[in-house]
Each structure stands twice: as structure tokens, then as C-alpha cells.
């Protein structure tokens, strides 16, 4: 049986709390937001991974050129 999604509504004029099912429109909007967020999150994580890989490549090249270890180069550069 599908999960019933509910909304807790607090009427500030009366203090009354009511739990009602989400409408079809609200459910559709929620699903669209979830998909958009997942996409944005995946894109950001891919970008961060690419930057990390690029940084590792550059550090390795610097270390090789300087005759130092990557850790020594990182310590000198401060990152």
C-alpha cells in the first residue's frame, strides 16, 4: 500500500492543528523538487571530484619537479 503523505496545518488565528493528505499537485511538486535536488547534488559532487583529481595531478607534477613528496609540497603551499 502506498505511503500517504500528510500535511500538518497550524491555523495561527485559532491554534488549531489539522493533519490532511497532500494534494496531487503538492505531491507532484515535491517529487519534482526531489528530482531537481538530486540532479543538482550529483552535478556538484561530480564537479568537486573533478577539481580534486585536477588538484592531485598538479600537486604530483609539482612534487616531481621539485624532488619533494606530495605531502611536502602540500605543507609548503599550505593546502
Amino acid at each position, binding site marked *: 500500500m502506498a505511503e500517504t503523505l500528510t*500535511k*500538518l496545518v497550524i*491555523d495561527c488565528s485559532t491554534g488549531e492543528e489539522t493533519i490532511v493528505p*497532500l494534494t496531487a499537485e503538492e505531491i507532484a511538486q*515535491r517529487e519534482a523538487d*526531489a528530482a531537481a535536488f*538530486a540532479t*543538482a547534488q550529483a552535478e556538484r559532487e561530480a564537479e568537486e571530484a573533478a577539481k580534486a583529481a585536477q588538484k592531485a595531478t598538479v600537486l604530483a607534477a609539482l612534487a616531481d619537479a621539485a624532488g619533494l613528496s606530495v605531502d611536502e609540497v602540500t605543507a609548503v603551499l599550505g593546502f
Partner: protein
Amino acid sequence: MSVTLISTVTVGAGGVSNISFSSIPQTFTDLVVTLSARTNAAGTFDITSILLNGTGVTGTRMWGTGSAANSQTSNFLLSSGSGTTTANMFSNGQIYIPNYTGSANKYFSLDNVNEDNQTLGFQTVATLACSTGAVTTIQFTPTSGTTFLQNTTVSLYGITKGSGGATVA
């Protein structure tokens, strides 16, 4: 300046998918919302969307994890604890909405912290642009998860400005 609690709610057993404050009184100067949330999302954090008068709010979200800083413009704003976060860890957030009864475009601020009591932490701030009229309804919806879990708490306060220009005791 005075602060008045308008309404507060704590989610009960079973959870809810959306928390909505309706018929917000128009008698204050500003609004403050405090939120402590946890959802059933599968990851270490979830993001809560904010809707004013039924419309999603878009803003610039900036967050730091202690090892990196990020920014994003979206309508995904508040981070909250979720499924794999250490048990009983809830986020902590506050939204300040100045001049909420006015019809002009408004900018309001948000700050929020969420961590898993292990290695992950988020400190988020956001600037939100709202072009709606007077704020009468505020809704919160999780984005990755479907449900705010039991003991999620949201409180709505009204701020009334002081009078004149004199110092008020």
C-alpha cells in the same frame, strides 16, 4: 522591541510530509521562524524547501563543512538531519523575515546548522528574495526524504518594533 510566540508545533509519531502555518496574523512588524528538523531521507542530510503563500522561495545558499565552502542558488535552503545521521541528531535553524506585511519585494535571512556528531557538519546561511505580498502562510517540505520525523519542532514568533527613537528598557 517585543517578541511574541504565535504558534509552535512538534511532530508526533508517524511524522508528516509538510508543516504549514496558515492565517498568520498581520499585527507584527517582523517574523522569526525557528526549526529543529530531522527527516527520513537516506543520506546524512536532507534539505528543506520553504514556501511563502504557497510559492517556493529561491535564494542563495552558502554552506561550509569545515573542509570546504560552497554556494548555490536554488529553492533548497535549510539542511536537516536524516536517516544515516547519528540517532537523535536534529538540525537547528532560524529565519528572519522583516516587514512581512508589506507588498514590496523582501529579502530575509536564514542561518542553520546541521551535523552528524561524527565527521560531517554544515553551517548554512542564505539570502532569500521574496516578491510576494504580505506573508500569510509559511510551509516547510523536505526534499530528499518524504517525512519530517517525530520531535521535529517549528516555532513562529512575531516581532514588534520599539516606539520612537528612545532607548526602551
